[in-house]
């Protein structure tokens, strides 16, 4: 199987299947770190009932591949899997999966966080949320931008 897997999809994904795919990848693996981003029912002090996600088809996959390539230069990685959902989501729904396998945990932890930090600030996805006051586009957060500076 391909060591890098990138998928943008509207359907939900199975954490177990993603984890299993990483685990079966290669017997050299000593560590797997996974991250799952879920939809919260609050944002900026308001309750949120529905989230809609759109993206830039083509560019999204390219940007994710570049981020993963950069991670592979910095750390020794085996498998990397990124699944990001688009479309309509409800509270507690899974939005994004990032999974990294490596011979050593230090590389896997760091790479998973690195990929997630850059996904949030570079990959062309946009969120729109429904609150009691109607729909609004989510603003980018300064804290997300500063998270990339530590790398």
């Amino acid at each position, binding site marked *: 199987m391909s060591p890098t897997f990138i998928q943008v999809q509207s359907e939900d994904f199975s954490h177990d299947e993603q984890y299993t795919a990483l685990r079966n990848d290669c017997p050299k693996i000593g560590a797997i770190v996974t991250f799952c*981003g879920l939809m919260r029912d609050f944002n900026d002090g308001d309750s949120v009932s529905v989230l809609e*996600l*759109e*993206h*830039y088809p*083509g*560019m999204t996959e*390219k940007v994710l591949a570049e981020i993963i390539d950069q991670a592979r230069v910095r750390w020794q990685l085996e498998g990397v899997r990124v699944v*990001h959902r688009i479309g309509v989501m409800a509270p507690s729904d899974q*939005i*994004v999966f990032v999974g990294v396998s490596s011979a050593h945990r230090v590389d896997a932890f760091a790479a998973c966080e690195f990929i*997630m930090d850059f*996904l*949030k*600030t*570079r*990959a*062309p*996805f*946009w*969120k*729109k949320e429904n609150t009691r006051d109607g729909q609004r*586009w*989510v*603003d*980018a957060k300064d804290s997300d931008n500063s998270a990339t500076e530590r790398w």
Partner: protein
Amino acid sequence: MLNILYFARLREDLGSDQEDLALPEGITTTAELRDLLMTRGEQWQQALSTAGLLVAVNQEVSDWSSKLKGDEEVAFFPPVTGG
């Protein structure tokens, strides 16, 4: 032809997700293209003044001095909020 794409808030505010445009006379950079589009009216002026507006040329984020030849895919969008 340029293929110009608009995403998220811009797409909604402009009521358009994409258009084809022959590179207008005298336009050589992404900034000049944005400025020209802004002359289309109040809505365009506002949408393309969005704080942190980004431009991508052929699916790669570019700066505002990027040169255009006339056959590119140019996308305008607000700061990204995925993950």
